[in-house]
């Protein structure tokens, strides 16, 4: 069979461990030459079914540029087929210098084994000092697989990145957000997954020009997908909301519709604590906290939320926190700017009515 792009069969890329055409020697990782950043470009479908670049990818590209002033090279790796073409200018404009496109129609859907195999090969080829993923479900599934292949260190769920010479200092919350641990990798490439929403989404800063390199996938391990159903969540994304009206175990079921109406009036979104997800009142996509989402609204209104450490871990980036609660000494009081002591249901209803 051989490589599909060569007709004379001289190319050995089918063989595992073979070199890509034109490459005389396999580069070694972990040497001082390693430089630059490589980012996995995750894509998603919007409501109309059009493909778009996820926001966290732009956040990562913006953070890279802010950290090193645009001096090092930035590689992007994207998986898919012809539908990706309209995305190129946007990626270049946000700082990608060289885009590796793993050009395969099958890989438009997520196959972790094949994705990891191709990413590892591209990383060995390009020798980046740093490899970044978004800490989305897919990113968190893919990154460890790549790290294990390359025998590299990996820090998950980072909320802050900093450069010290060539070392990347990765900061992540631990123990339910009570401790921030700064972690360094001891080998190259240094790998991290970064939580979406922790850095601002930057504006494009240059004209969209760059190079795309088409990469042929040689991985034959594909998942046998029986069925796939795209979830259309009715609500907005709570990680992007400016005002969050968050409900906890202290509110009654009738108050949910009141909160939704209030959210509409304020231009905000309704989120919730874990207890309400367990009760089945809300979808997990609405959950704030360690096992839910990290949110960064300007205003966080916590109605009837006691504030377990796991919940507080999710609101560390919130601008202003106002808790409405019966208990002035509840856990949430430790992070709240203001605690209104009273019946959350009554105050919620009154607030909704008065607006």
């Amino acid at each position, binding site marked *: 069979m051989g490589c599909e792009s060569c007709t004379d069969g001289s190319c050995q890329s089918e063989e595992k461990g073979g070199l890509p055409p034109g490459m005389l020697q396999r580069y070694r990782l972990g040497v001082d030459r390693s430089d630059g950043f490589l980012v996995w470009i995750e894509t998603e479908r919007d409501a109309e079914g059009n493909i778009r670049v996820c926001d966290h990818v732009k956040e990562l590209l913006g953070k890279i540029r802010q950290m090193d002033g645009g001096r090092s090279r930035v590689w992007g790796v994207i998986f898919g087929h012809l539908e990706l073409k309209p995305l190129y200018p946007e990626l270049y404009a946000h700082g990608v210098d060289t885009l590796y496109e793993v050009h395969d129609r099958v890989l438009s859907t997520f196959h972790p084994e094949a994705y990891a195999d191709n990413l590892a090969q591209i990383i060995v080829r390009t020798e980046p000092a740093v490899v970044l993923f978004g800490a989305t479900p897919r990113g968190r599934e893919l990154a460890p697989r790549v*790290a294990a292949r390359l025998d590299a260190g990996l820090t998950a769920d980072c909320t802050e990145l900093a450069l010290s010479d060539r070392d990347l200092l990765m900061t992540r919350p631990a123990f*339910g957000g009570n401790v921030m641990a700064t972690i*360094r990798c001891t080998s190259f490439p240094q790998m991290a997954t970064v939580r979406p929403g922790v850095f601002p989404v930057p504006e494009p800063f240059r004209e969209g020009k760059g190079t795309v390199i088409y990469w042929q996938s040689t991985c034959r391990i594909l998942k046998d997908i029986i069925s796939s159903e795209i979830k259309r969540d009715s609500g907005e994304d709570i990680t992007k909301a400016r005002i969050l009206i968050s409900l906890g175990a202290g509110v009654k079921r009738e108050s949910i519709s009141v909160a939704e109406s209030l959210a509409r009036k304020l231009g905000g979104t309704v989120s919730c604590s874990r207890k309400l997800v367990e009760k089945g009142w809300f979808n997990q996509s609405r959950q704030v906290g360690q096992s839910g989402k990290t949110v960064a609204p300007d205003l966080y209104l916590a109605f009837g939320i006691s504030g377990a450490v796991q919940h507080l871990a999710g609101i560390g980036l919130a601008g202003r926190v106002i808790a409405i609660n019966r208990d002035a000494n509840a856990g949430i009081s430790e992070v709240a700017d203001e605690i209104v002591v009273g019946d959350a249901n009554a105050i919620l209803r009154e607030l909704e009515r008065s607006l």
Partner: protein
Amino acid sequence: MRFVVFVKQVPDTTLIEVDENGNLRRAGVPSILDPCSEHAMETALGLRSEGDVVTAVTMGPPQAESALRRCLEIGADEAFLLSDRAFAGADVRATARALSAFVERFAGDATLLLFGRQASDGDTGQVPAEVAEMLGREQFCYSTKVERAGDAFRCTQDYGDEIRVCSVPSGSVVSVSEGDVNRRLPSIERFMAVRNMTVTVLGRIDLGLGNFSVGMNGSRTRIVESRNVRSVRSGTVIDGSDPVGAAAHLREVL
């Protein structure tokens, strides 16, 4: 068939308190079997039919045996504790190395390798995928349901924006994110029987691992510093016993 479940012992995070300086009071907090690990156990037990074996494995200090005892009570048939001083300070990579060495030596024939999605003590759910890669197996993360489909399995994965159903080949790594809340409680007879069961302890030598592939030496990350970040905010307390007044106050803030 053999189902190997990897579990973790964690401090009960719901009981952790914070003192006035923002430090965690970890002393005296009881250790429990991680809830996600329990989901993985339940999944394995649900798949078990006549003649199948469920194996519980954990890596940790000698005290982690109590988590394995709990697994035996729930219904595991055998339990292995990977414990060695050399394992201390392991990061994701070193942990995955030890677990995959266990599978290679003691459970190469396992039908499914099950994990909890993530541990509640700040772990990140990266170990399953690293183990899968080290063993060269397929991985199925965020599984909400695993069921038998003839001789093979079928699992439902929830990616947040997509739910998909895949067929799972034998020997795959599955990480489970949800479990049955209404599970049965272990019987008294089971409790008594477990007291006579042994937990096999395996060290670094038993797993055939070198000093430089486990623990601190086998880790690829180092913690540079860790600091407490309990931010103390102004925390003004406002009386809200009158809903109308409280609502008026909130409206001003908006």
